[in-house]
């Protein structure tokens, strides 16, 4: 890249300065500031001085304990059973000001299971955050492969040589230029309970056998509904990137395959897919990054509900950092989010590395 022309330090610096300076000021500094703030108790506006608190914010979010509850026993030592259920002491006896269990202080039950007579409980310092973490991962694990796969399908569909194909390409890409806020609001309407659009459509397709669902109002369907809508909005973007990848594959390879008498599936397996390697890596990384940043859909459609079933990391970061003006808490979630994104893109890069 280096030009062999004379060294021109002054002009070079001057021309790069506005761009590099702005990126330093508004991306790099806030980025490092997030790490710093996550170690303090900084608030947006506070009369009290900011203090260094170490990793307290992290343990407040990520603190977990496993605790085994033993049943209440009668004098003979048998577990007390009422209404067919084994009776346990109340959890709060252990988590509230119990000097024998300082590590459980302030924690709440996240989930638990039965183990013989005992009940094992996983306690979390911040159950809402843990739900947000799990929901975000769930969202990414489903959306990334589905969206990438559907986008590839669309790209193959649109890569045919047919009259008017560019019209279809333009239509498939259309949702990409529409704001996710607009899309979310429209789909909120489509998902509405009772005679909503989706319910009516499904009722019509099944000749009335389908009973309406409150798609966004129940915990089992809320997050999947948001996933489906997100795929609908984003798939055109990645279709275009796949398409660009498809068009870099030399036509002579296809001609050769045809002469060899390769079947369609074989052509895809041995010509198309190997040619799409780099595109696949790029698309997976981009979709994963975008999916982790999920925010507007949640803010517009569910605000994290019902029962925290659609809480996600960015929404939590905003709710704390902006809503509750708890800058340090919001920054801590941002840092955790960034570290996850970084780790996953490194893993994806490693898994899809060239194996020579």
């Amino acid at each position, binding site marked *: *890249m*280096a*030009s062999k*022309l*004379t060294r021109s330090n002054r*002009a070079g610096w001057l021309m*790069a300065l*506005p*761009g*590099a*300076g*702005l*990126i330093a000021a*508004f*991306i790099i*500094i*806030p980025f490092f*500031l997030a790490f710093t*703030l996550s170690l303090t108790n900084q608030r*947006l*506006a506070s009369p009290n001085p900011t203090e260094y608190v170490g990793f307290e914010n992290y343990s407040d979010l990520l603190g977990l304990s496993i605790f085994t509850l033993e049943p209440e026993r009668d004098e003979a030592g048998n577990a007390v059973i009422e209404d067919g259920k084994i009776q346990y002491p109340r959890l709060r006896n252990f988590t509230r000001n119990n000097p024998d269990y300082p590590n459980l202080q302030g924690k709440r039950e996240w989930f638990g299971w039965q183990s013989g007579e005992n009940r094992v409980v996983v306690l979390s310092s911040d159950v809402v955050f843990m739900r947000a973490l799990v929901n975000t991962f769930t969202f990414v694990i489903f959306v990334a492969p589905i969206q990438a796969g559907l986008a590839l399908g669309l790209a193959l*569909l649109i890569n045919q*040589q*047919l009259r008017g*194909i560019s019209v*279809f*390409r333009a239509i*498939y*890409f*259309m949702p990409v*230029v529409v*704001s996710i*806020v*607009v899309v979310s*609001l*429209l*789909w909120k*309407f489509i998902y509405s309970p009772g005679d909503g*659009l989706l319910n009516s459509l499904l009722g019509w397709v099944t000749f009335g056998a389908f009973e309406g669902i409150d798609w966004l109002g129940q915990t089992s369907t809320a997050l999947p509904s948001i996933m489906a809508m997100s795929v609908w909005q984003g798939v*055109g973007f990645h279709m*275009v990137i796949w398409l*660009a*990848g498809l068009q*870099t594959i030399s036509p002579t390879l296809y001609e050769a395959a045809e002469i060899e008498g390769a079947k369609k599936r074989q052509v895809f397996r041995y010509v198309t897919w190997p040619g799409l390697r780099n*595109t696949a890596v790029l698309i997976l990384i981009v979709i994963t*990054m975008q999916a*982790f940043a999920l*925010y*507007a859909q949640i*803010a*517009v459609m569910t605000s994290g509900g019902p029962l925290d079933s659609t809480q996600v990391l960015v929404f939590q*970061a*905003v709710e704390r950092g*902006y809503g509750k003006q708890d*800058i340090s808490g*919001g*920054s801590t979630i*941002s840092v955790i989010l*960034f570290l996850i*994104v970084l780790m996953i893109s490194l893993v994806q890069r490693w898994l899809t590395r060239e194996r020579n």
Partner: protein
Amino acid sequence: MALVTSDNHGLRLWTRYAVLILVAVIFIFPLLFMAVSSLKPDQQLLSDTNSLRAFLPVGDISLQNYSDAFERAPIGIFVFNSVFVTGVTVVLTLFVCSLAAFSFVFLDWRGKSVIFSILLATLIIPYETIFIPLLLMVSQLPWIGGEGIEWGWINTYRVQIIPFIADGLSIFLFVQYFKDLPRELIEASRVEGASWWTIYRRVVMPLSGPVIATAAILKFLFMYNQYLWPLMVVQAEEIRPVMVGLGYFTDQLNVPWGEVMAYLTIITIPVLAFYLSLQRVFIASVAATGVKG
């Protein structure tokens, strides 16, 4: 694209078009529903969803929702703000990022490769992970205004513009494009005694139409559709962009759905029209982010 190939015949051709059309319907129906519903009174809008009437401009059709929407919210101001903020940012992005890329590609200076690697590394930072510390930062930044130094950027145009002028992707796109320009052209001008500034302005930029369009379109989509950032830093009505203005309609006890649809149509149709008239360029722009990555 319109080549007629050997297997373009009969039934197979029809099934292909049937699949294409079915998929097209999936992508169009919510937008069609939006535009059609904006013409209906609330009651009819809600009852029409149980039939195909939802997608047809039938029944009590009028522009009433539009005039009601304009009465409820200062839509003209919102649209102006969005267009202003987006326009200014796009122009500044094109200038600042192309200038930096020019320096990275054609000039040789100390520290260049280190700085370029750092800028590239910022591509992995999602904006969502820096908004909270950025919020704290902009709430305390100084600005020299008409009345001396002011503190805090909240509730201004600049807080919506300045943080988004420079970004790694835009610089990267320009760098990739500039690398493919014929180097002899620049060297010849240099020998003739042209300054770097002149070469940038007179030689390189006039040759850079495609990458300018790409960078402009990507930035335009990002800026016009921004939501989270303006939500956090803009409270005043006079500088509120369209996406945040939506709150005027949705934060009601009884959401006026007809007006919502009218508002969504107003803020979406111009973008869609712009896209459809330049769709090849739009699609090429997105493709450009992939090919060279």
